[in-house]
């Protein structure tokens, strides 16, 4: 018998359900990187895994929750945030993290996003923005740039709509912590995710990622490696920039950093205080 070389375990594998691997993600996809960021943030904060709930919606990013050894809930399309709000209000001791994609969070679930920001419920939303619906083959979505090609915005015209800037959307809807990074800025992004989780209030972290299989191919952006190299090239770090200036132009400029970190009364705390006050009054 020959002895095979020892296989090193990934340092984050203690948080990951290895029996669910290999990942379903295509080569060159960013979702695995973001999954790692979240695992490292949880690790760094030393959270009790038993008290963490990872919630996701539908699509490629939606499959990320199932890889965590925490309590996870894979919801229906677009409803991750609404579901997560229920979890948090029912048991505010739980650390509730939503990981989902741009289509899920900002199109069909857009209404839930803005209202959760407004309510300021203490959950962390990590939106992996790869500019299209990957799982269904690459249709344009709410973050697809003008004139980009997709299955439903084919050549020669491309997308006639304009995208949301999710940082601006979350900030103006009332989110108390808003950051944006690209998938290649793993350490900075992980630190922001840590802060987002620690934040007592609604936190929104956008991670710009690559979908070489669908969006990259249809827009001739190169393979996964090339797309990630590009992200590194165009990322400009401007921490503390007013969120309305956090521009995102895929070709030339992706403003990254933490843009909002403010204090506001958090929903479940307000709810508890109101109950206490009411009880005292009778």
């Amino acid at each position, binding site marked *: 018998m020959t002895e095979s070389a020892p296989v090193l375990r990934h340092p984050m594998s203690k948080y990951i359900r290895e029996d669910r691997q*290999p990942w*379903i*993600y*295509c*080569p060159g996809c960013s979702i695995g990187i973001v999954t790692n960021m979240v695992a490292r943030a949880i690790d760094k904060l030393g959270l009790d895994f038993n008290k963490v709930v990872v919630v996701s919606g*539908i699509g*490629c990013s939606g499959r990320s929750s199932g890889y965590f050894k925490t309590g996870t809930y*894979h919801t*229906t*399309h*677009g409803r991750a945030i609404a579901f997560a709000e229920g979890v948090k209000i029912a048991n505010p001791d739980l650390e509730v993290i939503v990981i989902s994609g741009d289509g899920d969070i900002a*199109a*069909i679930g*857009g209404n839930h996003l803005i209202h959760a920001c407004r309510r300021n419920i203490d959950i962390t939303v990590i939106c992996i923005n790869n500019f299209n*619906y*990957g*799982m*269904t*083959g690459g*249709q*344009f979505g*709410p973050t697809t740039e003008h004139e980009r090609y997709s*299955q*439903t*915005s*084919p050549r020669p*015209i491309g997308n006639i709509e304009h995208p949301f800037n999710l940082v601006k959307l979350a900030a103006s809807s009332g989110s108390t912590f808003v950051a944006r990074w690209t998938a290649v800025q793993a350490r900075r992004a992980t630190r922001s995710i840590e802060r987002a989780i620690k934040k007592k209030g609604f936190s929104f972290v956008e991670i710009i990622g690559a979908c070489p*299989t*669908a969006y990259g191919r249809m827009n001739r952006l190169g393979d996964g490696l090339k797309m990630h190299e590009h992200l590194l090239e165009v990322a400009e770090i401007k921490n503390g920039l007013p969120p309305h200036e956090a521009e995102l132009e895929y070709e030339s400029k992706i403003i990254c950093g933490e843009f909002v970190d403010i204090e506001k009364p958090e929903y479940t705390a307000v709810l508890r205080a109101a109950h206490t006050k009411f009880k005292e009054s009778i």
Partner: protein
Amino acid sequence: MDISFNIGGEAGQGIDTIGDLLAQIFVKQGFYTFTHKDFMSRIRGGYNFNVIRVSDRPVHAPSHKYDVIIALTEDAIRRPRDSLVEDGVIIFEDSIEFSDLEPCHFPAPLLKTARKVGGNIRMMNAAALGAILSVLKFPFHLAQDTLAEIFGRKGQKIVEGNIAVAKALFDLTAKEFSRSCSENLSTIKKGPCSDRMMITGNRAVALGAMAANVKWVSSYPMSPSTSVFQDIVSNAEKLRIGTIQTEDEIAALLMAIGASFGGVRSLTTTSGGGFSLMVEALGFAAMTETPVVIYNAQRPGPSTGLPTRTEQSDLLFSVFASQGEFPRIILAPKDPLDGFDVTVRAFNLAEKYQVPVIILGDQYFADSVMNLPRIDVSTVSIDRGKLAKDDDGEYKRHRLTDDGVSPRAFPGDPGKIVVSTGNVHLEDGHITEDPEIRNAMVHKFMNKIPFILEDLNHPTLDGTSDAEMTLLSWGSSWGATNEAMSILSEDGVSINHLHFTDVYPLRDEVLKEVFARASKVIAVEQNTLSQFAKLVRMEVGLSVTHHVNRYDGRPLTARWIIDKLEEVGAL
């Protein structure tokens, strides 16, 4: 001749291409083909396969056995092994580590040959094709012409490369693999079929909609319906069709209703989860008597269920969806050709009766490919229903009429103010709470139903009309059920097949006759609860005697139905 191929591998490996090439070769030779795609809800990896069935008789369903398996991964070698016919062949890419070799296995250098002979690993598809044709003893020159045709537009170099790779594997297989299929096609003659158009059910729906002059499609992507939307989007510029991908399905149906109110034929496409979101708007379309067509490609539920698999479980949901009561029409095509016809009729019925029409497809219908005859679009007739004339007097959108249908006008029509509301309304479209008007408007809705019923197609009855046993099916279950009926009939069983494409409202004339004659009526459905049988009992008061239900998301086959018929004691 009845040969089945199973081509399996990971998502993204090109199994679709091998299947398409193979099917096209047999189509060009004059045979009937049926391709079913079995795939996982993921973009890369996993285990996917295509089943291609080729016959000199029309085929509408996959077979339960495979004559030839092409495997591009280990899973694809092992998983279908038990479904291989006794003298079948499994050809697999020889770089896969697989040591449990049996006489049926042939490790073929598909990638190596593609690289060496063609200079491009993409030509592995042609290599696989060469090996398949070789074990069938299919004359290579016949395939060569087809390959030249298929690859023709890609240039001479690609054509020659693919042919050379296919030929290399064809010869190598003949030399190195002694086993061959029981089907020896060395003396193959032209088959009886002249149908050349290879399309899926979804494409047939898209073509039907475009032939019916659809001018508006608003949809949100959802498997397995999305390709209908994509097909129409791709032709939107040429045919001047307004298309929009909305933020969700609520907006999708509402925009379609808006476009219809604005004067054009409109469609939305979705699957059950999306249809769930549309339910509010469905009632709104009904209350405002705005015609609209909804295509629901069903998949197993509830919730996200099995996104890329098949089920017929949204029938009763479609019959009852929305608060309140109103007429609606539900049509369920039996195969792609029927899909074209159904879609054209859906638009005509929607406008004629000013009601929502739901087309119930499913993943099996949506993704299966058949070769069809050319569709003569000039035979399509368009009936926009009652339109307001200038001399009607004051225009009232919801004017009370004997048949319940009020002439339509559109905002902007000179001299006509078009008013409607989701509240109970007067004839002129303004809100009222008057009980008499409420009753009049309810009667107006319900008065449409007898006229709709007259306009719907009767079910089809195949086989002897006075059989002792009747198989009852609807929608895409037609193919496998009909084949099961033929097999049993040839075996001497007294059996026929009653099938509904127009499922709601329910035409019951033939149903009553069949129930009166047959001692056993068996519902064959791809759901757990025999939803159509329940509908029959609710509407007609007749109960089937046995149930055959498949709900694992996989397609029906004739053999599966026959086995189940035995299991439930119907045979």
